[in-house]
């Protein structure tokens, strides 16, 4: 089960995907083909691509909600999916913020956040919940029900809930797709702040170039189930090397070509009217 660390170059990444393949029953082509990725400690990796390119499938495989047909998933050096075994989602120590947030409608905000704290002694749960609500700027809203909150507030509850059990790894599935556009910049700010503060390695899936530039340390471009490019946002912007990647970042090209987008203060970027990719 345990991989010999000596056999690996450098420190063991938090997450390592090797040769992941997945095809859904009845589908005509593979959702994922031979995808390999690594996520280091403290890193924020964005997976981008058109809708239907397998981004969400990738996330669900890491989470343990789908079983890959081929390849292996290692978390903290331990195989959680692969020839050597399988770990169900509830024992992976992975936090996830779902696209639709997945808040439990019958539970109060504080109960939602405390849901994953089963292993914590009862006395420590309340302070932990308060601490998390404060972290996401929702202190005082614990007694509300999810439907009494705005979309942005709901997202922050989902984030606090996912962070509560101190996951080794955080997954964010299209964090902004369910939110109104005017809200986005502010929400993105607060998300970045929380993620930086908690320093949880994060894998996120987005389809908006602007989000990538503001949020991610590194980008992997997924197309047709394969990773076609990988690098820092700056690298990919400067040197797309692929028609799709070029188009993806094109919108952000400013008249002043010498200024690199990743040097820009966030929020001042021209917002694309629509998410990229074919409608």
């Amino acid at each position, binding site marked *: 089960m345990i991989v010999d660390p000596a056999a690996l170059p450098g420190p063991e990444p938090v997450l390592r995907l090797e040769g992941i393949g997945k095809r859904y029953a009845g589908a005509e082509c593979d959702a994922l083909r031979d995808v390999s990725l690594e996520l280091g400690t403290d890193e924020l990796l964005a997976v981008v691509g058109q809708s239907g390119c397998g981004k969400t499938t990738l996330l669900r495989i890491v989470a343990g909600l789908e079983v890959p*047909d*081929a390849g292996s998933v290692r978390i903290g050096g331990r195989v959680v999916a*692969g020839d050597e075994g399988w770990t*169900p989602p509830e024992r992976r*120590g992975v936090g996830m913020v779902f696209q639709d947030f997945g808040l*439990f*409608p019958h539970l109060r905000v504080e109960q939602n956040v405390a849901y*994953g704290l089963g*292993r914590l002694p009862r006395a420590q749960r309340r302070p932990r919940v308060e601490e998390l609500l404060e972290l996401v700027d929702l202190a005082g809203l614990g007694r509300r029900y999810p439907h009494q909150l705005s979309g942005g507030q709901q997202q922050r509850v989902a984030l606090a809930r*996912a962070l509560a059990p101190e996951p080794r790894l955080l997954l964010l599935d299209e964090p902004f797709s369910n939110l109104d556009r005017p809200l986005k910049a502010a929400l993105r700010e607060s998300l970045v702040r929380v993620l930086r503060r908690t320093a949880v390695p994060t894998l996120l899936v987005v389809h908006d170039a602007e989000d990538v530039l503001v949020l991610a340390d590194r980008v992997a471009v997924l197309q047709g189930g394969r990773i076609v490019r990988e690098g820092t946002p700056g690298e990919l912007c400067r040197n797309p090397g692929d028609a799709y990647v070029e188009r993806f970042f094109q919108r952000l090209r400013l008249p002043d070509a010498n200024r690199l987008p990743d040097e820009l203060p966030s929020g001042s970027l021209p917002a694309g009217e629509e998410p990229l990719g074919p409608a």
Partner: protein
Amino acid sequence: MEIALRRNWRLTVRSVPWGWTLAAVGLAALLAIPVVTVPVGAVLAPTGDAWTHVSRTLLPRYAGNTLFLLAVSGGLALVLGAGSAWLVAMCDFPGRRFVRWALVLPLAVPAYMAAYVYAAMFGVTGPVQRVLRAVVPGGGDAFYYWNVMRIEVVAVIFALVLFPYVYLPARALLESRAGPALEAARVLGRGHLEVFRTVGLPLARPALAAGLALVLMEVVNDYGAVRYFGVPTFTTGIFRAWFTLGDLDTAVRLAAVLMIVVLVLLLAERWQRGGARYATKGGGSRATPYPLRGVGAAGAFVFCAVPVALGFAVPVLHLAAWTLRTGPEVVDANFLRLAANSLALAALAGAAAVLVGLVLAYACRLDPTRLTRAASRVALLGYSVPGAVIAVGVLLVTLALDDVLGGGVRLVLTGTAAALVVAYVVRFLAVAYLPLDAGLDRVGRSLGEASRMLGVRPLGTLLRVELPLLRGTLVAAGTLVVIDVLKELPLTLILRPFNFDTLATRAFQLASDEQVAQSAPAALLVILSATAVVALLHRSLRRDAESEHAR
């Protein structure tokens, strides 16, 4: 190539622990045993004299009567159900909203209870013939001593209480899905009846076939009405073989033949539906109704109101009149104990069915493979199997087990409430399963997934997330089973413990003993509880339909 080879590890690695899948498969196997035992037992049974006699002399009569009832009741139910569905969905006439709702009510009346009422009303000594004899000149004429206890009358009674099974799906289809196609046909200049014939009927065909199949299943299942009217069918044959002749082998064989009849019906329905699932998906809207006036409106109202009156109002009012007369004498401490007994038994069966249905439906969610789907399909088989057949199957199994457990002397399981509850679950699991399955669909996947990502295992997730959200559905599913168990007759008669009565068996026995008026309070109690549930169910159906529109 490599990917194709390495896919094999998927066979051993599963995203779900085996526990749920094994529980589902185990439950399905358990519930299938009584059903599978019958054909197996029929093949293995020794051919005795009784069977030779029955197969030569009685089998043709059983088959002939059953086929006659299927044909006439089915045909009439189809006319009533499809006709009223069309009028309600496609036309506007005064009273439409009332009959739209009221057309469901006959479902609350068990056929055998309607049979008692009509036998009494139209019998030789009944009010109808008495009035006719008094009013019409030459009233002593033999013509007016018409024998009501005929197979044709039973067939009509079946149609009157069962046609809503056709009406409901047909109306749902015409109201929600078929709107655009029907309007297109009208724009193309087709007349009302022509649209009905060329577009409405073909579109509604899958719904009509499904509803008709339910009607026919209920016809085959009935024991009380045919017995009361003295019409020998397969079901009465099974009872005769077991209770009168004490010949289980013959009962098993008749049950197996009855299963073949059901199988043919199911296959016919499948074939009818065929690939024809062209109920257009998504939200069509109700087509603009044809406004009816004058004679047309009156005709439409009468067409819809008469089945409601005959299938619901008349039996209920008549039973109510009887109850007023006999109630003070019948309703005593004993009667109340009987009602409590019935309800407790039904509640037990309802709870068991909900529990089993929940395990199956949840296992299908956790592990959506062919195995779990097959398990739930097998477990639901009992719904299409007549109660008498299931009872014979349970009898075979419990008698065999008693041979082992009691050394052939004592009856350990046979005739216990436990065996009865198991049989109810076999028969009515589908009634609980379908709403639970739909409920889990409504809750969706992501809440359960979120819970598991937070470290909670499937059982904990079900208890903490899905169940609290499905409380209403659980109660509804259980209540539907309770009502079906309260109405159930043949299975209960065969399997009930010695000296144990339910409201239904008591009503049946009193009616059989020429004390039909005394049977009314029990019958009325059953019908009124069923009516409450049917009405509530219809309301919730409408709410679902409306929320579907809103989406």
